């Protein structure tokens, strides 16, 4: 059998890192779902809290405390919702088969979906984080800018982790993994066991934020070098695993 019957194809490389069709379809699928409305609620609450505290509180400590802890928790949960759905929703409803029954490289599927998740997380979590910081301490304050840059870094790392989780686990288990990671590992253990911060996307982001803001109230446990270095390693491992898992994507048949 040859490909002789098939029409002449364009010379574009299929091994590119990104695929425009996958990006557009993923964007529409993610923003189409009703829960996309939910993405906007937590950041609006954060901005509201910031405006309220700015108007009522006199303490100078609340901006790094609230925006560092609550803001980055919202960042993590938003990344879980978005990063967990860009691939997970299609695996869950089976529509991923239509995408994978084409010669498009699995690497470009993962990277395209990952890019969409990162951009949406920046829109729905990092930019609101900056707006909340700007309300609290001024648009050009180092804290607002630091938290914004740290949140962007966090968006890259969290989404790599959650895309990986959906490529490994069933959607329900991936969600459970994400919640355990955010609430138990980062929320509880990282404040009790110092070493846990080494494997915490939140602390990678806070390390970057602190390198700009220089504010001890951010409770950054890592240096910027360690945070960025570990962030790159974790992101790279997560993406490689995701590509590998998607390349071996299996659908269960009927069992006799």
């Amino acid at each position, binding site marked *: 059998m040859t490909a002789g019957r098939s029409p*002449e194809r364009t010379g574009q490389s299929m091994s590119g890192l990104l695929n425009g069709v*996958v990006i557009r379809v993923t964007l529409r699928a993610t923003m189409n779902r009703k829960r996309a409305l939910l993405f906007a609620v937590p950041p609006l609450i954060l901005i509201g809290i910031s405006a309220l505290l700015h108007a009522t509180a006199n303490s100078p400590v609340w901006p790094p405390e609230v925006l560092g802890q609550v803001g980055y928790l919202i960042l993590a949960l938003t990344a879980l919702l978005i990063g967990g759905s860009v691939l997970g929703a299609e695996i869950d409803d089976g529509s991923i088969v*239509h995408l994978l029954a084409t010669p498009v490289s699995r690497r470009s599927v993962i990277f395209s979906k990952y890019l969409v998740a990162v951009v949406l997380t920046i829109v729905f979590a990092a930019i609101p984080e900056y707006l909340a910081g700007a309300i609290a301490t001024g648009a050009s304050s180092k804290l607002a800018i630091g938290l914004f840059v740290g949140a962007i870094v966090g968006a890259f790392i969290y989404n790599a982790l959650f895309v990986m989780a959906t490529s490994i686990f069933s959607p329900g288990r991936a969600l459970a993994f994400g919640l355990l990671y955010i609430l138990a590992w980062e929320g509880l253990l990282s404040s009790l066991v110092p070493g846990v911060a080494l494997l915490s996307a939140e602390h990678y982001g806070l390390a970057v934020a602190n390198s700009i803001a220089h504010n001890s109230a951010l409770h950054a446990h890592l240096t910027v070098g360690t945070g960025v270095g570990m962030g790159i390693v974790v992101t790279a491992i997560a993406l490689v695993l995701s590509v590998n898992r998607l390349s071996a994507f*299996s659908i269960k*048949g009927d069992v006799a």
Partner: protein
Amino acid sequence: MTAIELTGVSRWYGDVVAVNDITMSIGPGVTGLLGPNGAGKTTIMHMIAGFLAPSRGEVTVAGHSSWRNPEMFRQVALVPERDSVYAFLTGTEFVIATAKLHRLPDPEAAARRAIELLEMTEAQDRKISTYSKGMRQRIKVAAALVHDPEVVLLDEPFNGMDPRQRLHMMDLLHAQGEQGRVIVFSSHILEEVQRLSGIIQVIVGGRLAASGDFRAIRRLMTNRPHVFLVRSSDDRALGSALIGRPAVSAVELTTHGLQVRASDYGTFTREVAGLSRDKGIRLTQVLPADESLESVFTYLLAS
């Protein structure tokens, strides 16, 4: 030319064997995978399409292993059974997106051709979420055919289609097979396979029960021993007359009438009427007791 080869292929999930040591070759034309629900047809389809790794054995398409081989989809198309498409896209958007994923030089023209082929032009600009099950099935097939594949795998393609759509799809697949493409479809409905396919592979309990020309297998199915429930004005007299006939291998007198085991379907059905007339016995019921597809498959497996 053999396009698809399964060599000693098994697939199990834990302790459950879904597909058991299947060896088959599939070439150009229409081939039907026939078997009852849960027989392992879908598992076989998924292994051919590279969406499932065999636990043992090898599956090749055009000489290359199908597992972890997305390049294969330049020549292969899969229409999955599951009714899951990007419902937020219109039919046209879905087929064009598929054409673009295949990097076709003119995706719009290719999509238009495929949509016309499936008679979906009228509904092409509606969102897929508004489609009936049959329409979804057809738009899935349009997307699958958009890159003019050599091999088309269709898992239960007639599910949800009305009779007219079903006939149209059968004609379409038949024409594709006539053009030298390899068309493989699965079905648990004997009539669908009978109408469409010259070659069938009968799958029962994860094993290949029969393979080859449909007519030969159909004959085997017809000539298998059949069990009939017969009621008459004098069951005992009719039973003693029937047991003397070569076409009858066993007769049991029950409270519900006679249970007759016939070794030859055609001969028995002809003889029982004549015999009862000769004996002056009035027949009130001749009912095949084991006509379910499962019983046919079980017989094929045993033979």
